[in-house]
C-alpha cells in the first residue's frame, strides 16, 4: 500500500474490498471471509504481495471481495493455477479458496496431486455439502439420502471424506474449522499460511438457503480437544473416528515443500549462445 507510515498496521478491514458479495444474508462464507482477513492482518501481509485464487461457485467469488491480487479462474482448476503461480513467483503468498463441488468433484484430481506435490499454498475449502450457485444439487460431501430435484430420494452414494483423502494423498497440514468459530478458523488459517508446504483447511460453512438444517452446525461442531499429531497412523485413526464435525488441526507432517531447482528469471539472462552451440555440426 502506498503512503504507509512506519507505525501503520494492517487491520482486517484493509483486506476487504468495496465489492458487495453475492452471498445470501446469513451465508457461512461471510465468516470464512472474516477469518481470512483477520489472518492476513495478524500476519501483517501486504495485500499487493498476496494472491487469492479460486475456481467457480459461491465461495469462489471471494478474490474480488479482498483488496489483494486475485484470480477467479475455472471451475475446479484453482489449485493448478495457484501452483503455477507459486512456482513462478515463490515470493508471493498464495491462498486458494473454493467450495466442496469445485474442490472435490470437478477438481478432485487436482486436490489429490496438490496434496502430493506439497507446494507452499494454503487451501481453504468452504464446505456446505451442496451446489449453491446452481440452486441446490448434491455435492460430493452430501450424504446419500439428501433429497433434491436432480437426485430425488438422494444420490445413494456415501459422502467424500476430504481429510482422510488429503492424508492418504500426502498432505502435510490437515485441519477443519467452522465458519461460526471465527477465532478458531482464523488461527487455523494463520497456521496454514505459516506452514511450509501445502496446507488444507476444511471450513464447514453452512448454506442457509439450500441446507437450512446446517444452521445446527453451531451446536453440533465440537473441538477435537487435542493438538495435532505428526504420526500418520495416529492421524489415520483419528480421521477414521471423525464424525465430520470435529474441528481443529489434525495432522502436521514435516515433508519438505516442493520447490523447483531454480526460480524463473524474467528479462535477465537471455544469452542462449551456449544452448545454440549444441546444434552445430
Amino acid at each position, binding site marked *: 500500500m502506498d503512503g504507509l507510515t512506519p507505525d501503520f498496521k494492517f487491520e482486517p478491514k484493509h483486506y476487504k474490498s468495496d465489492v458487495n458479495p453475492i452471498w445470501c444474508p446469513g451465508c457461512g462464507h461471510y465468516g470464512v471471509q472474516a477469518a481470512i482477513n483477520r489472518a492476513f492482518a495478524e500476519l501483517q501481509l501486504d495485500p*499487493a504481495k498476496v494472491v487469492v485464487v479460486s475456481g467457480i461457485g459461491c465461495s469462489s467469488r471471494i478474490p474480488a471481495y479482498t483488496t489483494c491480487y486475485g*484470480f477467479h*479462474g475455472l471451475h475446479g482448476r484453482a489449485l493448478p493455477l495457484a501452483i503455477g503461480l507459486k512456482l*513462478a*513467483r515463490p515470493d508471493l503468498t498464495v491462498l486458494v479458496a473454493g467450495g466442496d463441488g469445485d474442490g472435490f468433484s470437478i477438481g478432485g484430481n487436482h486436490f489429490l496431486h496438490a496434496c502430493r506435490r506439497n507446494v507452499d499454498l494454503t487451501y481453504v475449502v468452504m464446505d456446505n455439502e451442496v451446489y449453491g450457485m446452481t440452486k441446490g444439487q448434491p455435492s460430493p460431501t452430501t450424504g446419500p439420502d439428501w433429497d433434491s430435484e436432480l437426485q430425488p430420494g438422494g444420490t445413494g452414494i456415501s459422502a467424500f471424506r476430504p481429510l482422510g483423502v488429503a492424508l492418504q494423498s500426502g498432505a502435510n497440514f490437515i485441519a477443519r474449522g467452522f465458519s461460526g468459530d471465527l477465532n478458531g478458523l482464523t488461527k487455523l488459517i494463520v497456521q496454514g499460511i505459516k506452514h511450509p508446504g501445502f496446507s488444507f483447511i476444511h471450513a464447514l460453512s453452512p448454506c442457509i438457503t439450500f441446507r437450512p438444517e446446517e444452521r445446527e452446525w453451531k451446536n453440533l461442531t465440537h473441538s477435537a480437544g487435542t493438538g495435532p499429531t505428526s504420526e500418520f497412523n495416529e492421524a489415520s485413526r483419528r480421521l477414521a473416528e471423525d464424525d465430520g464435525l470435529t474441528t481443529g488441526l489434525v495432522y502436521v507432517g514435516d515433508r519438505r515443500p516442493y520447490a523447483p531447482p531454480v526460480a524463473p528469471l524474467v528479462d535477465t539472462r537471455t544469452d542462449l549462445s551456449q544452448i545454440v552451440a549444441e*546444434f552445430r555440426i
Partner: protein
Amino acid sequence: MTQFTSAADTVSVAITGSGGAGAITAGSLLLEAAGRAGWYGLMTRTVGPQIRGGEAAALVRLARRGVSGLGDRFDVLIALDWRNVERFVAEIPLGPQSVVLACEDAGDIPEKIAASGALSLTAPFTKLAEDIRGARPNIIALGTAAALVGLPEQAMVETVAATLADKGVSLEDTGQAIRAGYDIGLQLAAGHGAVAALRLAEEAGTGAGSDRWLITGNQAAGLGALRGGIRFAAMYPITPATDMLEWIAPRFGAVGGVLCQAEDEIAAINMAIGASYGGVPALTATSGPGLALKLESIGLSVAAEVPLVIFNVMRGGPSTGIPTKSEQTDLNVALYGLHGEAPHVVVAPLSVEDCIFTTQWAVHLAESLQTAAFVLSDQFLGQAKAVIDRPAETDLGTVRLKPTDPQAGAYKRYALTNSGVSPMAIPGMPGGQYTADGLEHNERGTPSSQADDHHSQLDKRNNKLEGFEYGDAWAEIEGDADAEIGLVTWGSTTAPVREAVARARAQGFKVRLVALRLLAPTRPALLAEALKGVKRLLVVEQSHSGQFLGYLKAHYDLPAPPQSLRHPGPLAIRPAEVCDVLRSWS
C-alpha cells in the same frame, strides 16, 4: 531460407526394421554423417505405437543443398528385416528406378514392395556383423547406405565412432564394420546401373565449412520459445509433443526457467496461466486429445487477458487417432474450438527451421496482445531432424504492457484503450491489485453481466488483435509476381508445395505460392493482394475433409474458385502430386 531442390539433386533412403533392429539409429547416423560431410538433409520417422518390438522406418533425404521435405519416392529401401513392413509400406513409395536392398536372411521380398518394379537385391548384413566385434547389422547396412549415396567413408566412420564409443566399441572395430558395409555398396554399384545411379553427383556449393545445425522441429520450437522469453512450461506427457519440453527441461536450468509435469492436461494449462498471471511468460505443449481438454482453459486466457502459448503438435485424429503420425487436422479446433467469442492467435511453422521463428513469434504475439496464441506444428515437423544453415536470429523482444505506477482504487486492469491492450499489473506491484476473471467484467475487473460491459470488452479483445501490425511474417510469398496460377498452403505441407513450385517454374510455368503462417486473426486484404492476378487457385493440405479449404472459403475473397488437393495423414503430400495438378491445367 531453405532453397528449392529438384528431385535430381537429392537421394531418398528408407531404412526399415522391426523395433530394436536399429533402423532409426542408422537413419539418424546417416543424416549426421551427411551433415559432417557438408551435405544437407532431412530425416523423418514412421513408427508404430509399440515401445519395443514394433516396426520402424527412418526416411532420409539427402542433398547438396537445403531440403525441407520428402521427395516423390524413395530411391533406395534398405530392409534390415521384413517384419511388419506392410504396416507402413504405403508411406514408402518406390518406383521401377528404385533399389530394394534386404538383409539376405530377411526372407522373401513382400509382394507389395516387389510390385513397385524396384530392383531387388540382398546383402549379408547379419552374417558380416557376426564376424566383427561390436558390430550390428544396422551398422553394416549403414556403411552400405553411405557407399550407395556417395558419402565419404571417413565421415560415416567418424560419426558412428562418436556414437558407439559410449557403448565401448573401439574406433578400429567401428571402422571395420562400416568398411565391410561400404565394400558391399561399392560392389553393388559396380554391378548394377540402378545402384550406381543412387550416388549424389559431385558438385560445388555444398555447405562444408559453413555454420550449420542439426536440429529437430520440436527442438527448434524449444529454442524459439526460449528466445521469445518463455520461462515457465507445464505439460502432461503426450506424443508427439513431449520431446519439445524434454528438450527445454534441462535447458531451463541455464536460463532460469521452471518446468512442471502436471497431473493432467487441464492442470498443465492452468499452471501456465497462473505463472503468466504472475508475470512469467508461459507455455504448455500438447497434441490433439490434450488440446481438446485444454479448450475451456484457453477461453479463460482470452477472457482474463493472460498471455499464453499453446504449442500443439498435430497427429492423426480424432480421438486417440494415430498418435505417432502426422496430419494437419487440428486446424478447425484451434480456430473454432473455443466457446463463446474468443479472439485469439493461431500461427503455424512452415518448416523444421521455421519452428524457431514461428514459436518465438507466438510468444511475442501472446505477450504483446495479452491473449492466447496457438502454434500448430505437426508430427512431421516436430520429429523431423534436419541439417540447416544456421538460422538468422530475430529479436522480437517480449513486450507485455505493464502499468508504471498503478494507484489503488483508480487502476483499471481492463481499461478500454485505443489499441485494446491495457496495462497489466503483476502481483507484487503496489496499487495494481485486481482480480483476473473468466467472468465477463467491467474495466476494473469486477464481474458484470451488463450488456454494455460485455459489448465493450468483446470489442476490446477483438480490436487489439485486428488492429495489430503483424508485418511480413503473416505469410511466405514466393514465385512469379505475374503468375496466373496460385497455390495456397500452410504448415508442413509447405515443403512439398514449394518443391513442386520450383519444378513447375523450372519447366516454364508461372506460379505463385502463398504459405500462411498467421491463420488467426485472418488477413483477407493481405491474401487478396498476394493473389492478385491469379486466375486458377490450388489449395493443398493434409486432411480428409478439407479444413483449410473451408477456412479459406469462409474468411477470404479468393480470386478464383479454389481446387483442392488433399488427403489425410499419414501419407505425406508429395511434390509430384502437386505438379500433376499443375500439368493438368496447362
